[in-house]
């Protein structure tokens, strides 16, 4: 099913010499991309490499400044998404475009409802939706309310929508970002099946493991240009990383760090909470973190990791249990008091909790400093010269790529936004830092930079709680790994002596052991 030179089937899609500029910014420059029937073609690159722009051009959302789009050998002009849909191109966006209050059937047919005279023909709609749903193995009552479905099913629904519209070419933009490892595997099986049935798939990702698991060919973009297009079997991860980053020295292995010290910094005992809106309740959690130690918290999302992070920092209150930081009981203290005692926090939802998304870079950086003003100081100038200069220093110290300290946070890439969060939290010189999904949506170069900063923090005796859905991240950074399942700690492993497979078993609750206290 991969591109086979001898048989030479003709490509269903050819993008040639695509150039797209936004004002002085060149997002795509002379990019070439092609797609064969039944092929899964991965498009990889760092944030800002131009993947999204290229796909938006293909989907008729942007008009290219130069270059041609050929579908089935014929040159076409895509002026709007409707043109692309009519040419059999479908896009599954990273953020779902579903109406939560609509039924499954209504969502599938939305925008192309069968019926006449403005009336919705339910029977015909069900008929038309059945085929695509069966192709995806989606055994659902079509009248189910979409909002009640889990994320993986909603994603299948997105793909169903695309198939219902008759798409032959399916674009998936970072489809695994919201899925658990098991759901990701299921999605891959599904994609391969769709490809075997003759659909062509463009798979956008920056997770190399996934790209190698699913793709026939890999095209790498860097700084808006095509670096290479190669069959996946001729490549290995380090070659793709080198192509993506333009550097050959990116470390993909374990981060070297000092050995942890003996004294306990963070001690959690018997911690329980009520049920969270999108997460399990904590059920008597016990663990300790020593100075300079990184404890990884692994688990499928929704098993209490968010609840743990929020209870530790104090944005959520526990029902029972105790949190101690270097001997001081934090359990009843407010967030600011906990932070004053030396607890730091990198929240998992960067846009909502990590940075003021519509505020400036300086406003994001200075939150720690500004927290300390008390009483009448609250009326003082928030950003005196000295603080502004400090902000500029932080931007250079943490290599934050921005037009300046007054730029709005939403103009920065994910990696640079995360550097703002890390700069703010680490500059407080915390005794303990809670990292929740610290590198989600961050590109490889920035990930390495952030890991080095974490290693530096442990070298000055900072205790680290690393909550992550990315097992590679946990294995690369942690000393010990704790696994959460349904709000409980079900296993403890030493990072260097365990494996992804073993942790995966714990994560599904298959091998529940007693908790390690």
């Amino acid at each position: 099913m991969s591109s086979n030179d001898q048989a030479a089937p003709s490509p269903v899609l050819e993008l040639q010499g695509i150039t797209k500029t936004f004002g002085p910014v060149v997002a795509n420059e002379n990019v070439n991309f092609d797609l064969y029937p039944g092929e899964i073609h991965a498009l990889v690159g760092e944030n800002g490499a131009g993947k999204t722009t290229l796909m938006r051009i293909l989907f008729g959302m942007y008009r290219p400044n130069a270059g041609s789009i050929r579908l089935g050998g014929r040159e076409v002009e895509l002026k709007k998404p409707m043109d692309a849909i009519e040419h059999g191109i479908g896009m599954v966006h990273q953020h779902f475009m579903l109406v939560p209050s609509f039924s499954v059937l209504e969502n599938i047919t939305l925008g192309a409802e069968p019926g006449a005279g403005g009336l919705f023909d339910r029977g015909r709609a069900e008929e038309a939706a059945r085929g695509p749903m069966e192709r995806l193995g989606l055994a659902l009552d079509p009248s189910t309310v979409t909002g009640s479905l889990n994320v993986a099913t909603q994603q299948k629904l997105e793909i169903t929508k695309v198939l219902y519209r008759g798409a032959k070419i399916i674009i998936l933009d970072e489809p695994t970002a919201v899925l658990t490892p098991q759901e990701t595997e299921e999605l891959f099986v599904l994609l391969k099946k769709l490809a075997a049935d003759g659909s062509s798939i463009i798979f956008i990702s920056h997770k190399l493991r996934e790209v190698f698991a699913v793709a026939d060919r890999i095209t790498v973009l860097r700084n808006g240009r095509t670096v290479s297009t190669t069959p996946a079997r001729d490549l290995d991860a380090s070659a793709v990383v080198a192509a993506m980053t333009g550097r050959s020295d990116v470390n993909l292995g374990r981060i070297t760090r000092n050995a942890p010290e003996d004294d306990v910094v963070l001690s959690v005992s018997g911690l329980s909470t009520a049920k969270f809106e999108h997460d399990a309740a904590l059920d008597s959690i016990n663990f300790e973190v020593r100075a300079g130690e990184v404890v990884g918290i692994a688990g499928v999302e929704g098993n209490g990791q968010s609840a743990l992070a929020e209870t530790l920092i104090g944005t959520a209150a526990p029902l029972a249990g105790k949190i101690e930081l270097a001997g001081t009981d934090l359990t009843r203290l407010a967030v600011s008091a906990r932070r004053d005692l030396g607890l730091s926090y990198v929240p998992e939802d960067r846009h909502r909790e990590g940075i003021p998304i519509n505020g400036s870079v300086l406003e994001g950086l200075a939150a720690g400093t500004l927290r300390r003003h008390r009483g009448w100081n609250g009326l003082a100038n928030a950003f005196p010269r000295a603080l502004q200069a400090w902000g500029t220093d932080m931007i250079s110290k943490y290599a934050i790529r921005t037009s300046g300290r007054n730029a709005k946070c939403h103009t920065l890439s994910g990696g640079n936004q995360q550097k703002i969060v890390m700069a703010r939290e680490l500059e407080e010189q915390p005794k303990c830092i809670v990292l929740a999904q610290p590198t989600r949506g961050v590109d490889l170069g920035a990930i390495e930079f952030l890991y080095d900063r974490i290693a530096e923090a442990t070298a000055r005796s900072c205790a680290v709680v690393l909550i992550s859905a990315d097992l590679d991240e946990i294995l690369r950074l942690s000393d010990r790994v704790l696994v959460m399942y349904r709000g409980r700690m079900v296993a403890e492993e030493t990072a260097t002596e365990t494996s992804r497979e073993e942790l995966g078993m714990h994560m599904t609750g298959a091998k529940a052991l007693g908790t390690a206290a």
Partner: protein
Amino acid sequence: MNTQTATAQQADPQRKSHLPEGDRRRRPKASGRAGMPLARRLIQPAFILVAGLIMALVLIAAQGYEPFSTLGAGLDYALGNPASIARTLAWGLPLFVASIGVCLAYRSGMFNIGAEGQIYAGAMAAALAGAYIGPMLSGLHLLLCLLFAAVVGGLIAAGLGWLRAAWGVDEVLSTLLSNYIIMLFCAYLATSPLRDPARQSGTTKEVFDTAMFGEIMPRTQLTSALFVVIVLCAATWWLSERSVTGYRWRMTGESPDFAAASGISVKKARIASMATSGALCGIGGALLVTASQGRFWTEIGTGIGWDAVLIALISRARPVPAIIWVSVYCIMRSAARGIEQVSTVPSELSLVLISGIIIAAAARAGIFSQFTALKQRFAHVKGH
């Protein structure tokens, strides 16, 4: 607006952050503090004003008058000489204070549409302090009146803010309904127990002369309250846009989860900003008494609380644009009165114009998306 925002396909306006990652980082190095050069930022308000003027010309012509000279006469009445400028300004003094007050609460995410009620409460407090305490040294008496008004307005708003912070009672509802409770209670006081027996209508006793601001320009009604207004505007601007407290309130309004996670007490910020907002509205009400009417009567507010809410929305809760819009508003009202004097075009023209301008400005300020955000809060949708 740049290309990306214009073409973004996101359904939810709040998720600006998910604009194409591909292009965000390498955006040109243009942005200053506000992201746009000043000239470009002024184009749209200017356009709105021009549209408003054209509308006025059409309306005047429709009444059979020569549009340009009539409008000219109106503007001359509003701004023709220092005395007319003073008269135009005098009417707007309470509105300046109330508008920046509403802005302040709005900045921390509290939609204080109880301004009208807080103005009435402030006016009542000042009228009582002016009539039942004293006479005494004028400056002291005025300070006392304003202080009473600020405390009463502030306590009312703080209470409503506390209901939101502690019990989740939506302040849109509670502040809206509080208007009726307060206005009707004040009407009861003015018509029954505290009525001035010397008068037929529902008014309280006239305040002592020491509780009245003196005119600073004869026969213009412009009083020394102007200086109080200037000081309050400047102080509020500093508090909201420059101070540490303002930072906390703004973060609470724009990114409440960020505020909570970084150790800002969201409850405290909401209650404190509501209290300050209510205090300013109360002072606005006090100025109605001490700088013009001299007593409380049942219709004293004439809806300036609602005007203040609208102006806060149009100016997106920024104090400086709010002050500019209040000025524009005063000029329009005054000009309409001038037009009424030289023609049979009724001064209600100003209401028509103001409504038109507000609709145009609302479209620009994205008020409709702000209301969508409000509605979402009612619906309690979390996540996507």
